[in-house]
Protein backbone atom coordinates (compact mmCIF):
# COMPACT_ATOMS: atom_id res chain seq x y z
CA UNK A 1 0.00 0.00 0.00
CA UNK A 2 1.26 3.46 -0.90
CA UNK A 3 0.06 6.83 0.36
CA UNK A 4 -3.15 5.15 1.38
CA UNK A 5 -5.92 7.43 2.53
CA UNK A 6 -9.42 6.66 3.75
CA UNK A 7 -12.03 9.25 4.46
CA UNK A 8 -15.53 8.12 5.46
CA UNK A 9 -18.64 9.85 4.09
CA UNK A 10 -19.08 11.37 7.55
CA UNK A 11 -15.88 13.35 6.89
CA UNK A 12 -13.75 11.47 9.39
CA UNK A 13 -10.27 10.61 8.08
CA UNK A 14 -9.43 7.10 9.22
CA UNK A 15 -6.11 6.63 7.40
CA UNK A 16 -3.81 9.22 5.99
CA UNK A 17 -0.76 8.66 3.76
CA UNK A 18 -0.09 5.10 4.93
CA UNK A 19 2.70 3.31 3.07
CA UNK A 20 3.34 -0.30 4.03
CA UNK A 21 4.23 -3.67 2.53
CA UNK A 22 3.03 -6.93 4.05
CA UNK A 23 4.50 -10.03 2.46
CA UNK A 24 2.87 -13.41 2.05
CA UNK A 25 3.40 -15.59 5.13
CA UNK A 26 4.00 -12.79 7.64
CA UNK A 27 2.36 -12.49 11.04
CA UNK A 28 1.56 -8.82 11.54
CA UNK A 29 0.17 -7.12 14.63
CA UNK A 30 -1.61 -3.81 14.06
CA UNK A 31 -1.41 -1.81 17.26
CA UNK A 32 -2.42 1.69 18.25
CA UNK A 33 -4.98 3.59 20.25
CA UNK A 34 -8.71 3.33 19.56
CA UNK A 35 -9.46 5.25 16.36
CA UNK A 36 -5.89 4.87 15.08
CA UNK A 37 -7.19 3.19 11.92
CA UNK A 38 -6.53 -0.51 12.65
CA UNK A 39 -10.07 -1.73 11.92
CA UNK A 40 -10.37 0.57 8.91
CA UNK A 41 -7.22 -0.91 7.42
CA UNK A 42 -8.53 -4.44 7.97
CA UNK A 43 -11.84 -3.46 6.39
CA UNK A 44 -10.02 -2.17 3.34
CA UNK A 45 -8.09 -5.41 3.04
CA UNK A 46 -11.31 -7.40 2.54
CA UNK A 47 -13.07 -4.72 0.49
CA UNK A 48 -15.46 -3.56 3.21
CA UNK A 49 -14.47 0.02 2.36
CA UNK A 50 -12.56 1.40 -0.61
CA UNK A 51 -9.52 3.66 -0.28
CA UNK A 52 -10.25 7.33 -0.94
CA UNK A 53 -6.83 7.77 -2.54
CA UNK A 54 -3.47 6.04 -2.79
CA UNK A 55 -2.73 2.47 -3.82
CA UNK A 56 -3.75 -0.71 -2.03
CA UNK A 57 -2.85 -4.02 -3.64
CA UNK A 58 -4.28 -7.01 -1.79
CA UNK A 59 -3.60 -10.48 -3.17
CA UNK A 60 -2.53 -8.92 -6.50
CA UNK A 61 -5.75 -6.92 -6.80
CA UNK A 62 -6.00 -3.14 -6.79
CA UNK A 63 -8.66 -2.63 -4.13
CA UNK A 64 -9.52 0.87 -5.31
CA UNK A 65 -10.43 -0.20 -8.83
CA UNK A 66 -11.56 -3.78 -8.14
CA UNK A 67 -14.98 -4.82 -9.38
CA UNK A 68 -17.55 -6.33 -6.99
CA UNK A 69 -16.77 -9.74 -8.41
CA UNK A 70 -13.03 -9.27 -7.64
CA UNK A 71 -13.91 -8.18 -4.12
CA UNK A 72 -15.95 -11.37 -3.70
CA UNK A 73 -12.94 -13.39 -4.89
CA UNK A 74 -10.73 -11.67 -2.32
CA UNK A 75 -13.24 -12.38 0.44
CA UNK A 76 -13.39 -16.06 -0.52
CA UNK A 77 -9.61 -16.24 -0.11
CA UNK A 78 -9.64 -14.35 3.17
CA UNK A 79 -10.60 -15.56 6.63
CA UNK A 80 -12.02 -12.85 8.88
CA UNK A 81 -12.18 -13.02 12.68
CA UNK A 82 -14.16 -10.32 14.45
CA UNK A 83 -13.89 -9.13 18.03
CA UNK A 84 -17.61 -9.82 18.55
CA UNK A 85 -17.27 -13.16 16.70
CA UNK A 86 -20.24 -12.41 14.41
CA UNK A 87 -21.50 -15.94 15.00
CA UNK A 88 -25.07 -16.74 13.98
CA UNK A 89 -26.75 -17.71 17.23
CA UNK A 90 -29.80 -19.23 15.55
CA UNK A 91 -27.57 -21.71 13.78
CA UNK A 92 -25.44 -24.60 15.00
CA UNK A 93 -21.66 -24.58 15.25
CA UNK A 94 -21.60 -26.77 12.15
CA UNK A 95 -23.73 -24.29 10.19
CA UNK A 96 -21.58 -21.37 11.32
CA UNK A 97 -18.30 -23.02 10.41
CA UNK A 98 -19.67 -24.42 7.15
CA UNK A 99 -20.89 -21.02 5.95
CA UNK A 100 -17.73 -19.97 4.00
CA UNK A 101 -17.70 -23.33 2.22
CA UNK A 102 -21.41 -23.18 1.59
CA UNK A 103 -20.91 -19.75 0.00
CA UNK A 104 -18.31 -21.36 -2.25
CA UNK A 105 -20.78 -24.02 -3.33
CA UNK A 106 -19.62 -27.06 -1.36
CA UNK A 107 -22.14 -29.91 -1.03
CA UNK A 108 -23.31 -30.89 2.47
CA UNK A 109 -21.68 -34.32 2.14
CA UNK A 110 -18.24 -32.70 1.71
CA UNK A 111 -18.89 -30.03 4.30
CA UNK A 112 -19.34 -32.29 7.29
CA UNK A 113 -15.90 -34.00 7.27
CA UNK A 114 -14.17 -30.69 6.57
CA UNK A 115 -16.01 -28.86 9.39
CA UNK A 116 -15.37 -31.76 11.73
CA UNK A 117 -11.66 -31.56 10.90
CA UNK A 118 -11.30 -27.82 11.60
CA UNK A 119 -13.32 -28.12 14.80
CA UNK A 120 -11.03 -30.95 15.84
CA UNK A 121 -8.12 -28.57 15.25
CA UNK A 122 -9.58 -25.98 17.64
CA UNK A 123 -10.66 -28.68 20.12
CA UNK A 124 -14.41 -28.37 19.59
CA UNK A 125 -15.20 -31.51 17.61
CA UNK A 126 -17.76 -32.57 20.24
CA UNK A 127 -19.66 -29.25 19.81
CA UNK A 128 -20.52 -29.75 16.13
CA UNK A 129 -24.30 -29.68 16.68
CA UNK A 130 -24.37 -27.25 19.62
CA UNK A 131 -25.62 -23.69 19.36
CA UNK A 132 -23.10 -20.87 20.01
CA UNK A 133 -25.03 -19.57 23.03
CA UNK A 134 -24.20 -22.84 24.80
CA UNK A 135 -20.46 -22.11 24.44
CA UNK A 136 -18.15 -19.96 26.56
CA UNK A 137 -16.58 -16.76 25.15
CA UNK A 138 -13.32 -18.57 24.44
CA UNK A 139 -15.11 -21.42 22.72
CA UNK A 140 -17.11 -18.97 20.63
CA UNK A 141 -13.88 -17.29 19.52
CA UNK A 142 -12.46 -20.70 18.61
CA UNK A 143 -15.55 -21.34 16.50
CA UNK A 144 -14.87 -18.00 14.79
CA UNK A 145 -11.28 -19.10 14.15
CA UNK A 146 -12.54 -22.41 12.78
CA UNK A 147 -14.90 -20.52 10.47
CA UNK A 148 -12.08 -18.26 9.30
CA UNK A 149 -9.75 -21.16 8.50
CA UNK A 150 -12.27 -23.66 7.12
CA UNK A 151 -11.82 -22.56 3.49
CA UNK A 152 -8.01 -22.66 3.71
CA UNK A 153 -7.60 -18.92 3.16
CA UNK A 154 -4.33 -17.34 2.07
CA UNK A 155 -4.85 -14.48 4.51
CA UNK A 156 -6.52 -14.27 7.92
CA UNK A 157 -7.62 -10.84 9.14
CA UNK A 158 -8.36 -10.72 12.86
CA UNK A 159 -9.87 -7.64 14.44
CA UNK A 160 -9.07 -7.77 18.16
CA UNK A 161 -9.87 -11.48 18.44
CA UNK A 162 -8.65 -11.60 22.05
CA UNK A 163 -10.39 -8.42 23.17
CA UNK A 164 -13.02 -10.11 25.32
CA UNK A 165 -10.98 -13.07 26.48
CA UNK A 166 -8.98 -13.81 29.62
CA UNK A 167 -5.20 -14.05 29.31
CA UNK A 168 -5.00 -17.82 29.16
CA UNK A 169 -7.77 -18.15 26.54
CA UNK A 170 -6.25 -15.28 24.54
CA UNK A 171 -2.91 -17.16 24.50
CA UNK A 172 -4.64 -20.28 23.17
CA UNK A 173 -6.29 -18.23 20.41
CA UNK A 174 -2.87 -16.80 19.51
CA UNK A 175 -1.44 -20.32 19.49
CA UNK A 176 -3.95 -21.32 16.81
CA UNK A 177 -3.23 -18.22 14.72
CA UNK A 178 0.54 -18.72 15.03
CA UNK A 179 0.15 -22.34 14.01
CA UNK A 180 -1.85 -21.33 10.94
CA UNK A 181 0.84 -18.79 10.12
CA UNK A 182 3.52 -21.50 10.32
CA UNK A 183 1.50 -23.42 7.73
CA UNK A 184 1.87 -20.48 5.34
CA UNK A 185 -1.18 -18.33 6.05
CA UNK A 186 -0.60 -14.60 6.30
CA UNK A 187 -2.11 -13.31 9.54
CA UNK A 188 -2.88 -9.64 10.13
CA UNK A 189 -4.25 -9.00 13.57
CA UNK A 190 -5.38 -5.76 15.19
CA UNK A 191 -4.90 -5.87 18.94
CA UNK A 192 -4.62 -3.89 22.15
CA UNK A 193 -3.18 -6.85 24.08
CA UNK A 194 0.48 -5.89 23.87
CA UNK A 195 1.48 -8.46 26.50
CA UNK A 196 0.75 -11.18 23.95
CA UNK A 197 3.56 -9.92 21.74
CA UNK A 198 6.15 -11.28 24.16
CA UNK A 199 4.87 -14.84 24.10
CA UNK A 200 3.85 -14.72 20.41
CA UNK A 201 6.33 -12.51 18.56
CA UNK A 202 5.65 -11.09 15.10
CA UNK A 203 5.97 -7.95 13.05
CA UNK A 204 4.34 -4.99 14.80
CA UNK A 205 2.88 -2.13 12.80
CA UNK A 206 1.94 0.80 14.98
CA UNK A 207 -0.67 3.26 13.80
CA UNK A 208 -1.41 6.65 15.28
CA UNK A 209 -4.23 8.91 14.12
CA UNK A 210 -4.39 7.10 10.78
CA UNK A 211 -0.67 7.28 10.04
CA UNK A 212 2.21 4.88 10.41
CA UNK A 213 3.92 5.52 13.77
CA UNK A 214 6.27 2.54 13.82
CA UNK A 215 7.12 -0.75 12.12
CA UNK A 216 9.03 -3.28 14.20
CA UNK A 217 9.97 -6.69 12.89
CA UNK A 218 10.52 -9.68 15.16
CA UNK A 219 9.26 -7.88 18.21
Amino acid at each position, binding site marked *: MQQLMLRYPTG*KTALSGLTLDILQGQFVYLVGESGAGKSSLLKMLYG*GVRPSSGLLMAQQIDMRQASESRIRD*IRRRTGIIFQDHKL*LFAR*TVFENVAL*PLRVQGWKTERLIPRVRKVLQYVGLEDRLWSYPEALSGGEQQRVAIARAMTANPAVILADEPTGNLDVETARRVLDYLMDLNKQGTTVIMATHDLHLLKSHPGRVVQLHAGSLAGDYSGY
Partner: protein
Amino acid sequence: MATEVVPDRVNTRLPGGFNLPPFGVHQILALIIVCIALWAVGVLWLGMQTAGQWVGSWQDDIHIHVYLDTQREDNVEQLEQELAAIPQVASVKLISQQEAARWMQEWLTGGGLQQDELAKRLPITFELSLKDERSQFLFADIRDTAKHFGGKVNEDEVNLAQVHDLLTQAGLLAWFASLILAIAMALIISNTLRMTLLARADEIHLMRLLGAKEWFVRTPFILEGMVLGAGAGVSAWLLLWPVKLAVGDWLSTMQVDLNIWILLLPLLFGGAIVGALGALIATAHVVSSEASA
Protein backbone atom coordinates in the same frame (compact mmCIF):
# COMPACT_ATOMS: atom_id res chain seq x y z
CA MET B 1 -21.99 -39.92 3.78
CA ALA B 2 -24.03 -37.15 5.42
CA THR B 3 -26.38 -39.68 6.98
CA GLU B 4 -23.44 -41.34 8.73
CA VAL B 5 -22.44 -38.29 10.70
CA VAL B 6 -25.57 -36.12 11.06
CA PRO B 7 -27.53 -37.13 14.15
CA ASP B 8 -31.14 -38.13 13.50
CA ARG B 9 -32.70 -35.07 15.09
CA VAL B 10 -30.32 -32.56 13.50
CA ASN B 11 -31.58 -30.81 10.39
CA THR B 12 -28.82 -28.92 8.65
CA ARG B 13 -30.36 -25.66 7.45
CA LEU B 14 -27.52 -24.05 5.58
CA PRO B 15 -28.42 -20.53 4.49
CA GLY B 16 -28.28 -19.12 0.98
CA GLY B 17 -28.70 -20.56 -2.52
CA PHE B 18 -31.75 -22.70 -3.11
CA ASN B 19 -32.40 -23.42 0.57
CA LEU B 20 -35.68 -21.97 1.79
CA PRO B 21 -35.58 -19.97 5.01
CA PRO B 22 -37.73 -21.41 7.83
CA PHE B 23 -41.44 -20.45 7.79
CA GLY B 24 -42.61 -18.45 10.81
CA VAL B 25 -45.76 -16.76 12.02
CA HIS B 26 -45.23 -13.73 9.73
CA GLN B 27 -45.18 -15.96 6.69
CA ILE B 28 -48.32 -17.79 7.77
CA LEU B 29 -50.16 -14.50 8.31
CA ALA B 30 -49.01 -13.23 4.90
CA LEU B 31 -50.15 -16.50 3.33
CA ILE B 32 -53.62 -16.08 4.86
CA ILE B 33 -53.94 -12.44 3.73
CA VAL B 34 -52.72 -13.16 0.20
CA CYS B 35 -54.98 -16.22 0.07
CA ILE B 36 -58.00 -14.02 0.90
CA ALA B 37 -57.00 -11.49 -1.76
CA LEU B 38 -56.48 -14.23 -4.37
CA TRP B 39 -59.80 -15.79 -3.36
CA ALA B 40 -61.45 -12.41 -4.02
CA VAL B 41 -59.80 -12.35 -7.45
CA GLY B 42 -61.03 -15.92 -8.06
CA VAL B 43 -64.59 -15.01 -7.05
CA LEU B 44 -64.44 -11.97 -9.32
CA TRP B 45 -63.49 -14.08 -12.31
CA LEU B 46 -66.07 -16.72 -11.43
CA GLY B 47 -68.61 -13.89 -11.53
CA MET B 48 -67.33 -12.93 -14.97
CA GLN B 49 -67.60 -16.55 -16.06
CA THR B 50 -71.19 -16.67 -14.81
CA ALA B 51 -72.13 -13.46 -16.60
CA GLY B 52 -70.42 -14.65 -19.77
CA GLN B 53 -72.27 -17.94 -19.79
CA TRP B 54 -75.55 -16.24 -18.92
CA VAL B 55 -75.38 -13.89 -21.85
CA GLY B 56 -74.42 -17.01 -23.80
CA SER B 57 -74.48 -17.03 -27.53
CA TRP B 58 -75.38 -13.34 -27.61
CA GLN B 59 -71.76 -12.58 -27.01
CA ASP B 60 -70.75 -13.96 -30.38
CA ASP B 61 -73.78 -13.30 -32.56
CA ILE B 62 -76.12 -10.51 -31.63
CA HIS B 63 -79.38 -10.13 -33.59
CA ILE B 64 -82.06 -7.54 -33.11
CA HIS B 65 -85.60 -8.15 -34.32
CA VAL B 66 -87.85 -5.41 -35.65
CA TYR B 67 -91.58 -6.12 -35.97
CA LEU B 68 -94.03 -4.52 -38.35
CA ASP B 69 -97.74 -4.96 -38.12
CA THR B 70 -99.22 -6.84 -41.10
CA GLN B 71 -101.56 -3.91 -41.69
CA ARG B 72 -98.50 -1.86 -42.70
CA GLU B 73 -97.30 -4.39 -45.24
CA ASP B 74 -96.76 -1.60 -47.80
CA ASN B 75 -93.86 -0.27 -45.74
CA VAL B 76 -91.91 -3.55 -45.74
CA GLU B 77 -89.59 -2.83 -48.61
CA GLN B 78 -88.87 0.73 -47.57
CA LEU B 79 -88.29 -0.21 -43.93
CA GLU B 80 -85.93 -3.00 -44.99
CA GLN B 81 -83.94 -0.53 -47.10
CA GLU B 82 -83.82 2.09 -44.36
CA LEU B 83 -82.69 -0.45 -41.75
CA ALA B 84 -79.98 -1.76 -44.09
CA ALA B 85 -78.83 1.84 -44.63
CA ILE B 86 -77.86 2.22 -40.95
CA PRO B 87 -74.03 2.02 -41.03
CA GLN B 88 -73.59 -0.40 -38.09
CA VAL B 89 -76.19 -2.86 -39.41
CA ALA B 90 -74.43 -5.69 -41.27
CA SER B 91 -77.51 -7.24 -42.84
CA VAL B 92 -81.28 -7.26 -42.70
CA LYS B 93 -83.18 -10.50 -43.19
CA LEU B 94 -86.91 -10.58 -43.69
CA ILE B 95 -88.37 -13.56 -41.87
CA SER B 96 -91.60 -14.85 -43.25
CA GLN B 97 -94.56 -15.26 -40.91
CA GLN B 98 -94.64 -18.98 -41.72
CA GLU B 99 -91.02 -19.35 -40.68
CA ALA B 100 -91.60 -17.34 -37.51
CA ALA B 101 -94.64 -19.45 -36.67
CA ARG B 102 -92.70 -22.67 -37.21
CA TRP B 103 -89.91 -21.41 -34.99
CA MET B 104 -92.41 -20.41 -32.27
CA GLN B 105 -94.07 -23.80 -32.41
CA GLU B 106 -90.74 -25.51 -31.97
CA TRP B 107 -89.87 -23.19 -29.13
CA LEU B 108 -93.20 -23.77 -27.41
CA THR B 109 -92.97 -27.52 -28.20
CA GLY B 110 -96.39 -27.60 -29.84
CA GLY B 111 -98.41 -25.52 -27.47
CA GLY B 112 -101.59 -26.72 -29.19
CA LEU B 113 -101.43 -23.94 -31.78
CA GLN B 114 -102.33 -24.20 -35.42
CA GLN B 115 -99.30 -23.05 -37.42
CA ASP B 116 -101.38 -21.32 -40.16
CA GLU B 117 -103.54 -19.60 -37.60
CA LEU B 118 -100.45 -18.50 -35.67
CA ALA B 119 -98.74 -17.21 -38.83
CA LYS B 120 -101.72 -14.93 -39.53
CA ARG B 121 -101.44 -13.38 -36.08
CA LEU B 122 -97.67 -12.82 -36.15
CA PRO B 123 -96.16 -9.49 -37.28
CA ILE B 124 -93.73 -9.11 -40.14
CA THR B 125 -90.25 -9.70 -38.71
CA PHE B 126 -86.85 -8.31 -39.71
CA GLU B 127 -83.70 -9.88 -38.26
CA LEU B 128 -80.82 -7.42 -38.05
CA SER B 129 -77.20 -8.56 -37.77
CA LEU B 130 -74.97 -5.90 -36.29
CA LYS B 131 -71.42 -4.86 -37.11
CA ASP B 132 -70.71 -3.10 -33.85
CA GLU B 133 -73.29 -3.23 -31.08
CA ARG B 134 -71.17 -0.80 -28.99
CA SER B 135 -71.85 2.05 -31.42
CA GLN B 136 -73.31 4.94 -29.49
CA PHE B 137 -76.46 5.75 -31.50
CA LEU B 138 -77.12 2.39 -33.16
CA PHE B 139 -80.14 1.33 -31.12
CA ALA B 140 -81.63 4.82 -31.18
CA ASP B 141 -81.29 4.82 -35.01
CA ILE B 142 -82.96 1.39 -35.31
CA ARG B 143 -85.72 2.49 -32.94
CA ASP B 144 -86.32 5.76 -34.85
CA THR B 145 -86.35 4.02 -38.23
CA ALA B 146 -88.78 1.35 -37.03
CA LYS B 147 -91.03 3.94 -35.42
CA HIS B 148 -91.05 6.03 -38.59
CA PHE B 149 -92.62 3.13 -40.49
CA GLY B 150 -94.87 2.03 -37.63
CA GLY B 151 -92.62 -0.80 -36.49
CA LYS B 152 -91.30 -1.84 -33.08
CA VAL B 153 -87.93 -3.04 -31.84
CA ASN B 154 -87.59 -6.06 -29.53
CA GLU B 155 -86.39 -4.12 -26.48
CA ASP B 156 -85.44 -7.28 -24.56
CA GLU B 157 -82.88 -8.02 -27.24
CA VAL B 158 -81.59 -4.45 -27.09
CA ASN B 159 -81.18 -4.82 -23.32
CA LEU B 160 -79.24 -8.06 -23.78
CA ALA B 161 -77.03 -6.44 -26.40
CA GLN B 162 -76.29 -3.70 -23.91
CA VAL B 163 -75.61 -6.29 -21.17
CA HIS B 164 -72.90 -7.62 -23.45
CA ASP B 165 -71.51 -4.13 -23.65
CA LEU B 166 -71.62 -3.86 -19.86
CA LEU B 167 -69.97 -7.26 -19.60
CA THR B 168 -67.05 -6.05 -21.68
CA GLN B 169 -66.67 -3.05 -19.39
CA ALA B 170 -66.98 -5.31 -16.34
CA GLY B 171 -64.21 -7.48 -17.81
CA LEU B 172 -61.93 -4.46 -18.01
CA LEU B 173 -62.85 -3.54 -14.45
CA ALA B 174 -62.11 -7.12 -13.34
CA TRP B 175 -58.64 -6.88 -14.90
CA PHE B 176 -58.10 -3.54 -13.23
CA ALA B 177 -59.23 -4.89 -9.82
CA SER B 178 -57.01 -7.96 -10.27
CA LEU B 179 -54.06 -5.70 -11.05
CA ILE B 180 -54.67 -3.53 -7.98
CA LEU B 181 -55.04 -6.63 -5.79
CA ALA B 182 -51.87 -8.10 -7.32
CA ILE B 183 -49.94 -4.95 -6.42
CA ALA B 184 -51.39 -5.03 -2.90
CA MET B 185 -50.46 -8.71 -2.55
CA ALA B 186 -46.93 -8.08 -3.82
CA LEU B 187 -46.54 -5.33 -1.23
CA ILE B 188 -47.88 -7.58 1.56
CA ILE B 189 -45.40 -10.31 0.61
CA SER B 190 -42.66 -7.72 0.23
CA ASN B 191 -43.39 -6.36 3.71
CA THR B 192 -43.32 -9.84 5.23
CA LEU B 193 -40.03 -10.68 3.55
CA ARG B 194 -38.66 -7.33 4.61
CA MET B 195 -39.28 -8.33 8.24
CA THR B 196 -37.52 -11.64 7.60
CA LEU B 197 -34.67 -9.80 5.95
CA LEU B 198 -34.31 -7.47 8.93
CA ALA B 199 -34.38 -10.44 11.30
CA ARG B 200 -31.66 -12.09 9.24
CA ALA B 201 -29.62 -8.99 8.45
CA ASP B 202 -26.59 -10.35 10.34
CA GLU B 203 -26.65 -13.55 8.34
CA ILE B 204 -26.95 -11.67 5.05
CA HIS B 205 -24.15 -9.31 6.03
CA LEU B 206 -21.94 -12.23 7.04
CA MET B 207 -22.61 -14.10 3.80
CA ARG B 208 -21.53 -11.01 1.86
CA LEU B 209 -18.40 -10.69 3.99
CA LEU B 210 -17.59 -14.28 3.09
CA GLY B 211 -17.85 -13.50 -0.61
CA ALA B 212 -21.37 -14.70 -1.40
CA LYS B 213 -22.81 -13.64 -4.73
CA GLU B 214 -25.95 -11.52 -4.70
CA TRP B 215 -28.10 -14.26 -6.24
CA PHE B 216 -26.93 -16.61 -3.48
CA VAL B 217 -28.06 -14.15 -0.81
CA ARG B 218 -31.36 -13.21 -2.47
CA THR B 219 -32.53 -16.52 -3.96
CA PRO B 220 -33.89 -17.95 -0.68
CA PHE B 221 -36.11 -14.90 -0.25
CA ILE B 222 -37.31 -14.96 -3.84
CA LEU B 223 -38.06 -18.67 -3.47
CA GLU B 224 -39.88 -17.96 -0.23
CA GLY B 225 -41.97 -15.28 -1.94
CA MET B 226 -42.83 -17.66 -4.78
CA VAL B 227 -43.74 -20.50 -2.43
CA LEU B 228 -45.82 -18.12 -0.32
CA GLY B 229 -47.68 -16.78 -3.37
CA ALA B 230 -48.18 -20.18 -4.96
CA GLY B 231 -49.37 -21.66 -1.64
CA ALA B 232 -51.83 -18.81 -1.22
CA GLY B 233 -53.00 -19.34 -4.83
CA VAL B 234 -53.71 -23.04 -4.32
CA SER B 235 -55.42 -22.34 -0.97
CA ALA B 236 -57.58 -19.66 -2.61
CA TRP B 237 -58.48 -22.09 -5.40
CA LEU B 238 -59.52 -24.74 -2.87
CA LEU B 239 -61.70 -22.15 -1.12
CA LEU B 240 -63.56 -21.48 -4.40
CA TRP B 241 -65.13 -24.95 -4.26
CA PRO B 242 -67.46 -24.08 -1.34
CA VAL B 243 -68.64 -21.09 -3.40
CA LYS B 244 -69.49 -23.38 -6.31
CA LEU B 245 -71.25 -25.82 -4.00
CA ALA B 246 -73.26 -22.99 -2.43
CA VAL B 247 -74.52 -21.36 -5.63
CA GLY B 248 -74.11 -24.17 -8.19
CA ASP B 249 -77.77 -25.32 -8.09
CA TRP B 250 -79.10 -21.81 -8.39
CA LEU B 251 -76.77 -21.04 -11.30
CA SER B 252 -77.72 -24.24 -13.12
CA THR B 253 -81.28 -22.89 -13.40
CA MET B 254 -79.73 -20.08 -15.47
CA GLN B 255 -77.88 -22.59 -17.68
CA VAL B 256 -74.61 -21.63 -15.98
CA ASP B 257 -72.08 -24.33 -15.12
CA LEU B 258 -69.04 -22.90 -13.34
CA ASN B 259 -65.63 -24.34 -14.21
CA ILE B 260 -63.36 -23.96 -11.18
CA TRP B 261 -60.50 -25.99 -12.70
CA ILE B 262 -59.83 -23.27 -15.24
CA LEU B 263 -58.74 -20.98 -12.38
CA LEU B 264 -56.19 -23.39 -10.85
CA LEU B 265 -53.19 -22.54 -13.02
CA PRO B 266 -53.87 -18.77 -13.15
CA LEU B 267 -54.14 -18.62 -9.34
CA LEU B 268 -51.10 -20.88 -8.84
CA PHE B 269 -48.80 -19.09 -11.27
CA GLY B 270 -50.34 -15.67 -10.62
CA GLY B 271 -49.67 -16.16 -6.90
CA ALA B 272 -46.10 -17.31 -7.58
CA ILE B 273 -45.41 -14.35 -9.88
CA VAL B 274 -46.88 -11.89 -7.38
CA GLY B 275 -44.78 -13.53 -4.62
CA ALA B 276 -41.60 -13.32 -6.68
CA LEU B 277 -42.39 -9.67 -7.47
CA GLY B 278 -42.87 -8.94 -3.76
CA ALA B 279 -39.55 -10.65 -2.98
CA LEU B 280 -37.77 -8.64 -5.67
CA ILE B 281 -39.17 -5.44 -4.18
CA ALA B 282 -38.11 -6.54 -0.68
CA THR B 283 -34.60 -7.53 -1.69
CA ALA B 284 -33.99 -4.62 -4.06
CA HIS B 285 -32.36 -2.47 -1.37
CA VAL B 286 -30.82 -4.95 1.04
CA VAL B 287 -27.67 -3.04 1.83
CA SER B 288 -25.00 -4.24 4.19
CA SER B 289 -23.41 -0.89 4.81
CA GLU B 290 -19.88 -0.81 6.13
CA ALA B 291 -18.86 2.54 4.73
CA SER B 292 -19.34 4.37 7.99
CA ALA B 293 -16.86 5.25 10.65
